[in-house]
C-alpha cells in the first residue's frame, strides 16, 4: 500500500491542522507511531523555537502550512489492465500521492473491465506497493455491455467499494433498477455516469452558442439531466445509495438538491475542470485536452456547480483523472478521446478557483476532498484523530506554481492547465505513516 520511504517522520510540527471530520482547526503537532496518528497536540503558543523544529530528527516543519487528512478521490481511471502505456496502477497512485491523495477509487472501464472477482483482486494485488490506497470500483453489468448484472457480491467481498458503468450510462432503466435493488444488501453505492447516449451521439462539446459558433456537434445539458432525474427516481423507488459522478450542469445540481430534500439517498461530485473551465475555452484553442465527458459547460453551469459545492447540494470533489496518450490526443478535436488528467492539479485548482476566489474556506474545501468522499464509499480514511491511520497531506496554501507537464508523475500529459499558475502546493504526503511524496 505505501511506497518504500527513505525518510521516517514522527512529528509533523507547527502546521495549521484542519480536520473537517472533527471540526478541528488549530495550530499544533501531529505525532505518528506505527503508521497511525498517535496524538495531536495543540499549541497555545509556539512551544518550540523555529531552530528546534528544524534540528530535531523525524520532525517535519509544517509551519505556515496546512496539515489535513490525506485527500480522497472517488473517481480515477488507472488504465490497467489494458492501456499500461497511458497509466498503470502504480504510476497513477504515484501521481495521486503527488497531488496529496492517500486514497483513490479506480473506475472499472479498463480492458478487460473490472467486472468480476478476479479483476478486482488483480487491481488490489497490483496496488500492494502503490503510493496510495487503491480501492476498485466494479462494473454494473458484465463487460459493461448493459445486459446482465456482474457478480456484485463476489466483487464486494474481494474489495470493490462501489459499482459503476462509468464512461456511459446503464441504458436500460430496468437493469439499473435491478442493480440498485441488489446493492442494498451490501451497503455500497452505485456511481452513475449520466448521459443519454441518443442525445449525446456524435457530440464533442456542450451544445450552446459556442458549439454553434464552431460548427461542432453539441451535447445538450438535457442528455445528462434526463439520466440524473431517472436515476434519482430509481433511487427513490429502491432506497439504494446513488452517487452522481462529475455533475456538469446547473439543472443536475438542482435535481440532486431536490432529491436530497425529499430524503433520497443521493450524493453528487464535481470535478476541478467543471468548476475551472467552460466551453468557451475550446473556441480559443481547439485544445483536445478540453474534450471531456461530460463536456465543459457554460459559465452559468460553472457557477451553479461552485454554489452546489458551497451549499451542500454536491458532496465531494473528484478528479475524473483520465489519462490518454499523446498520439490519441494530438489529433483533430472530433477524433480525440474524452478525458483529462487531474490528480496532480486538483488541490491547486481548489486553491485558485474555490478558496482564493472566495467561494469556500480551506476547512470547507477540504471537507469535500476528505471525509465527505470517504463516507460515500465507506472508506476508512478521511479524518485526523488518535488511532486513525496516518494518512496526511501537508500543503502550502499560499504557494503559487506553474503547471509543467514534465513534472507530472502520471504517464500521460493530457492536461489543459499546462502553463497555468495554481495556488496551493502539496509539500508532503504521508500514507499509513510512510512518506509517499515530498516536494523539495
Amino acid at each position, binding site marked *: 500500500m505505501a511506497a518504500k520511504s527513505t525518510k521516517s517522520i514522527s512529528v509533523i510540527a507547527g502546521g495549521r491542522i484542519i480536520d473537517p471530520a472533527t471540526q478541528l482547526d488549530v495550530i499544533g503537532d501531529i505525532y505518528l507511531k506505527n503508521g497511525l496518528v498517535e496524538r495531536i497536540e495543540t499549541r497555545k503558543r509556539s512551544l518550540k523555537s523555529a531552530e528546534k523544529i528544524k534540528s530535531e530528527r523525524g520532525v517535519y516543519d509544517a509551519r505556515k502550512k496546512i496539515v489535513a487528512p490525506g485527500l480522497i478521490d472517488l473517481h480515477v481511471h488507472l488504465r490497467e489492465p489494458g492501456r499500461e502505456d497511458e497509466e498503470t496502477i502504480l504510476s497513477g497512485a504515484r501521481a495521486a500521492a503527488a497531488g496529496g491523495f492517500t486514497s483513490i477509487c479506480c473506475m472499472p472501464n479498463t480492458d478487460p473491465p473490472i467486472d468480476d472477482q478476479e479483476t478486482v483482486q488483480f487491481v488490489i494485488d497490483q496496488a500492494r506497493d502503490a503510493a496510495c490506497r487503491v480501492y476498485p470500483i466494479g462494473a454494473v453489468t458484465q463487460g459493461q455491455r448493459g445486459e446482465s448484472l456482474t457478480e456484485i457480491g463476489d466483487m464486494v467481498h474481494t474489495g470493490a467499494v462501489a459499482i459503476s458503468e462509468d464512461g456511459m450510462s446503464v441504458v436500460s432503466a430496468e437493469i439499473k433498477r435491478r442493480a440498485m435493488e441488489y446493492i442494498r444488501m451490501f451497503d455500497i453505492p452505485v456511481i452513475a455516469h449520466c448521459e443519454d447516449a441518443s442525445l449525446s451521439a456524435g457530440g464533442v462539446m456542450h*451544445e*450552446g*452558442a*459556442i*458549439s*454553434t*459558433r*464552431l*460548427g*461542432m456537434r*453539441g451535447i*445538450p445539458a438535457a442528455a445528462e439531466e434526463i439520466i440524473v432525474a431517472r436515476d434519482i427516481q430509481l433511487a427513490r423507488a429502491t432506497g439504494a445509495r446513488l452517487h452522481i459522478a462529475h455533475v456538469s450542469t446547473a439543472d443536475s445540481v438542482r435535481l440532486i438538491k431536490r432529491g436530497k430534500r425529499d430524503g433520497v439517498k443521493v450524493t453528487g461530485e464535481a470535478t476541478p475542470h467543471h468548476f475551472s473551465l467552460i466551453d468557451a475555452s475550446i473556441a480559443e484553442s*481547439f485544445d483536445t485536452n478540453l474534450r471531456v465527458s461530460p463536456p465543459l459547460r457554460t459559465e452559468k453551469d460553472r457557477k451553479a456547480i461552485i454554489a452546489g459545492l458551497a451549499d451542500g447540494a454536491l458532496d465531494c470533489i473528484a478528479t475524473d483523472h483520465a489519462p490518454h496518450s499523446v*498520439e490519441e490526443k*494530438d*489529433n*483533430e*478535436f*472530433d*477524433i480525440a478521446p474524452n478525458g483529462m488528467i487531474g490528480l496532480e492539479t486538483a488541490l491547486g485548482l481548489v486553491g485558485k478557483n474555490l478558496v482564493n476566489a472566495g467561494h469556500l474556506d480551506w476547512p470547507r474545501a477540504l471537507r469535500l476532498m476528505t471525509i465527505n468522499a470517504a463516507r460515500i464509499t465507506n472508506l476508512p480514511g478521511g479524518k485526523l484523530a488518535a488511532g486513525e491511520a496516518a494518512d496526511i497531506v501537508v500543503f502550502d496554501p499560499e504557494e503559487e506554481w506553474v503547471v509543467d507537464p514534465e513534472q507530472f508523475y502520471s504517464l500521460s500529459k493530457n492536461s489543459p492547465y499546462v502553463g497555468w499558475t495554481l495556488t496551493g502546493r502539496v509539500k508532503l504526503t504521508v500514507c499509513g505513516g510512510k512518506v509517499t511524496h515530498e516536494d523539495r
Partner: protein
Amino acid sequence: MPKSTPIAKAEKKSAGSRRRKKRQAARLSSRHLLGLENMPAADIELIIRTAVSFKDVLDRPIKKVPPLRGMTVVNLFYEPSTRTRISFELAEKRLSADVVSFTTSTSSVQKGETLRDTINNIEAMKTDVVVIRHRYPGAAHYLTRCCNSIVINAGDGAHEHPTQGLLDIFTLWEIFGSLEGKTVVIVGDIAHSRVARSNIFGLVTLGAKVRVCGPPTLIPVGIEDLGVEVYYNLDNAIKGVDAINVLRIQRERQSGAVLPSLREYTKLFGLNRSRLAAAGPDVVVMHPGPINRGVEMTPEVADGPQSVILSQVTNGLAVRMAVLYLLCGGETTVAER
C-alpha cells in the same frame, strides 16, 4: 446580372485605393486564412479590392499572372469537392504556382496516417501553402500547429468556409457597394452549414443585417449570439431583404430526425417565383451550389434575372486568387524570391 453604376463606381474607387495600397505593401493581419470570425473589416475590404483586379485578369485572353511563380501549393481535400477544388486549382494556376492536389476519403482518417504525419510528409517536399478541406471543425487550426506552411481553410466541417463567405460578400459588394445596413437572409440548413457561418461572421463585421431561416431542427441553439435574427417562416424572412442566400439541403437529412420529408421542406422553405415576386424585383438570389433544383429553389428562380449564382462562381476564382496573392506576401515577396 448586368453591371450597375455602383459597381463601376466601386471599381474605379477601388482601383485608386489599390494603387495606394500597393505602395504601402498592403498585408492581411493574419498569416493564414482560417475563418471570417474575428477577421477585421479592413482585411475583408483589402481582399475585395484585390479580387476586383484579379477579376479583370480573368477576362484577358491570357489569364495568367506571375506572382506565385516558384511557389508550391498543395490542395489537401479530405472531403469530396468539385467546384471548390477546381476553383482553388485554377486560382493557383492563374497565379503561376505549382499545384498538387490530393483527395482522400475520410473513412481512412481514423485508421490511417494522422493529419500531422500527412502534412509533415508533404511539407518535407518543400511546399509553401496548404489548402485544406476537412470534415472536422478546427482541422485547419490544427494544421497551423502542425506545420510551417501558410494554411487556407477550404471548409472545416460545419465551422467555416471563408473563401465562400468572401466570394458571397464580393458578389454582394459588386451590386450594392457598401453592405452597411443591407439585409441578407440565409435560408436552409444553418446547423450543418459552414457557408452560413462564414457569411454571418463576415456580413456582421461589415455592418449588414443578417437573418437566418429554416426549420428549428436545422437552426442551431444560440445562433442569435452571432448577431442574427431567426425566422421559421420563409415569406416573413424574405420580406424587406436585399439578398437571399439559399443553402443546399442535403438529401440525406430527410428520413433523419431533422426533416420529415424533402416534400414538406420544399413546401415550407423552397424559394419559388411567387415567393420571390412578393419579396420584390430587386432582391438578389444567391446559392453556394450545388443546387438541388426543385428542392430548395425552383429552376426558374435559379436561372432567373435575379439570380447571381454564376457570378458567384466567377467571383470565387477572383477571391481565391486575391487570398492566395495576399497571403503569399503580394508582389514584395515575389520580388524577394
